[in-house]
């Protein structure tokens, strides 16, 4: 496949970084592109998230334009499992580039519901799961096996929030902790079914769980509720042959760095608001790969040169850290491609500096 930019890392190089065998210069370049995929083909997030054809085209266009070291299958990554389980997602029509979402009130699980026999969606049939699975299959066929392609799955806590609603779930954490464990267990079953379908389609996995951020949930609550079910997910993934599992929680997650390490996920995120030095020290000690993000606002509104300067500084900070990965926060829809490529340039220039 034709690439407009230097080619991405081979799968073996990616594995070497994720497993922290050595610091890699240049670092891996993994921008966070979800709704912005649509802009590569002049479409909208709502349109590409509902069509395997459009999602495939958008992902291949992203691959050609950026040559990032991995791709993620997914647009509105927090909605798929909940929608397949019965939640209603709001889409935007025409040229509206808003991101699909679940409106407050459109939740299907109520505190106290018995979920022990609740049905698990079929990823090949329910909601838009088949869209993502088919796109994963087609993109894998196009980019070949020697490339890190990951299917987006929700983290258990974020899915539980989509199913129950944020306030109801947060209150239940204090009022009905045993029931919250049941919801999380149910969430885990749904996520595993979706994950298995991605694996069968030739993709690996990436877990998104930003609703479990310490900006919302205390570290002790993370340890009580989220850690066990996330560790279980990581163990399950390993048993399916997925050795490298990224866990993405946005915001300043420094207070739960150690807990995230204990999940067993081997590629963690230090968002642009996190304490990089603290994160780096913990990941170095534990042998975990660490992605560093830069601000989405910077990426959207600054010049490529300004972005390059910030990205170079971050790349230098991670230069000697085994497993260091340069990323971006979620790229806003319509961000100029040259702005994203400024980050890639900062990575590549590190090799010649």
């Amino acid at each position, binding site marked *: 496949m034709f690439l407009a930019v230097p080619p991405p890392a081979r799968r073996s190089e990616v594995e070497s970084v994720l497993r922290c065998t050595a610091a890699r210069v240049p670092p891996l370049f993994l921008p966070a592109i979800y709704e912005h995929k649509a802009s590569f083909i002049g479409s909208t997030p709502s349109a590409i998230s509902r069509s395997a054809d459009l999602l495939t085209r958008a992902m291949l266009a992203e691959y050609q334009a950026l040559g990032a070291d991995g791709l993620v299958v997914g647009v509105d990554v927090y909605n798929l499992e909940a929608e397949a389980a019965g939640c209603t997602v709001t889409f935007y029509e025409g040229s509206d580039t808003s991101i699909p*979402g679940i409106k407050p009130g459109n939740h299907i699980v109520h505190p106290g519901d018995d979920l022990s026999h609740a049905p698990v969606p079929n990823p090949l049939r329910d909601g838009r799961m088949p869209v993502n699975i088919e796109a994963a299959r087609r993109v894998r066929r196009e980019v070949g096996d020697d490339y890190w392609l990951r299917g987006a799955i929700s983290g258990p806590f974020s899915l539980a929030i989509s199913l129950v609603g*944020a306030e109801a779930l947060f*209150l239940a954490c204090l009022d009905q902790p045993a029931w919250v464990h049941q919801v999380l267990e149910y969430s885990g079953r749904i996520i595993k079914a979706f994950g298995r379908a991605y694996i069968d389609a030739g993709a690996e996995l990436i877990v998104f769980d930003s609703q479990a951020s310490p900006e919302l949930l*205390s570290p002790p609550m993370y340890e009580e509720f989220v850690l066990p079910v996330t560790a279980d997910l990581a163990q399950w993934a390993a048993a399916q042959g997925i050795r490298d599992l990224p866990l993405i929680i946005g915001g300043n997650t420094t207070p739960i760095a150690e807990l995230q390490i204990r999940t067993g996920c081997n590629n963690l995120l230090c968002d642009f608001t996190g304490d990089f030095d603290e994160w780096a020290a913990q990941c170095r000690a534990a042998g975990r790969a660490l992605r560093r993000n830069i601000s989405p*606002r910077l990426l*959207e509104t600054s010049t490529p040169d300004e972005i390059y300067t910030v990205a170079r500084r971050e790349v230098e900070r991670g230069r000697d850290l085994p497993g260091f990965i340069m990323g971006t926060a979620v790229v*806003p829809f319509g961000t100029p491609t040259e702005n994203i490529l400024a980050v890639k340039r900062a990575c590549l220039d590190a090799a010649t500096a």
Partner: protein
Amino acid sequence: MIDYAQINQMLYEGNAREVERLVREALAEARPVSEILNEGLIAGMAVVGEDFKYNILYVPEVLVAARAMKAGLAILKPLLVASATENPPRGTLVIGTVKGDLHDIGKNLVCMMAEGAGFKVVDLGVDQPAERFLEAAVEHRADIVGMSALLTTTMPYMKVVIDAFQARPELAGVKLAVGGAPVNRMFADEIGADGYGPDAPSSVEMFLKFVGAT
């Protein structure tokens, strides 16, 4: 004799039943409604807000505290309405998440804390166009209009709302405040907002300044 520190403590612990009981006890002692509201509920919620700001409390604890406050407030509300001229709200806040954005956790926290600080709160919900903010500001004679956004893609819509207010000279006295995870002071200044709240407690402190209550 009622001890307001006890109401504060029960509210902090999210013990709605005890808050209700103590509020009733205070009323039975013929304590003024405004005193119970200010020294029992509002003062209790202020401590919750302060501890939330410094990561001593997190969202679940704030929610149960707000629930306890609402339980106490529900008892006082009919009495407050009956004596509205003696106990006016500190101000009226119209608040919503802007168009294209369906997130509401942060906005809801601001609503709860603003209510806990004595404001009348009109919550427009999520995905709200500029016209809706304008209509509600006029209808409810808002002192403050608050806009929330979680997404970088929906932040710019805050400027659309601000421009719409600036085009209406009769609404010049309404303070326009913004907040949400990707928003910062620089952005707030750029789009002409009167204020920026980095978190729910700070937002309420700003609202209090807007209405001259601090």
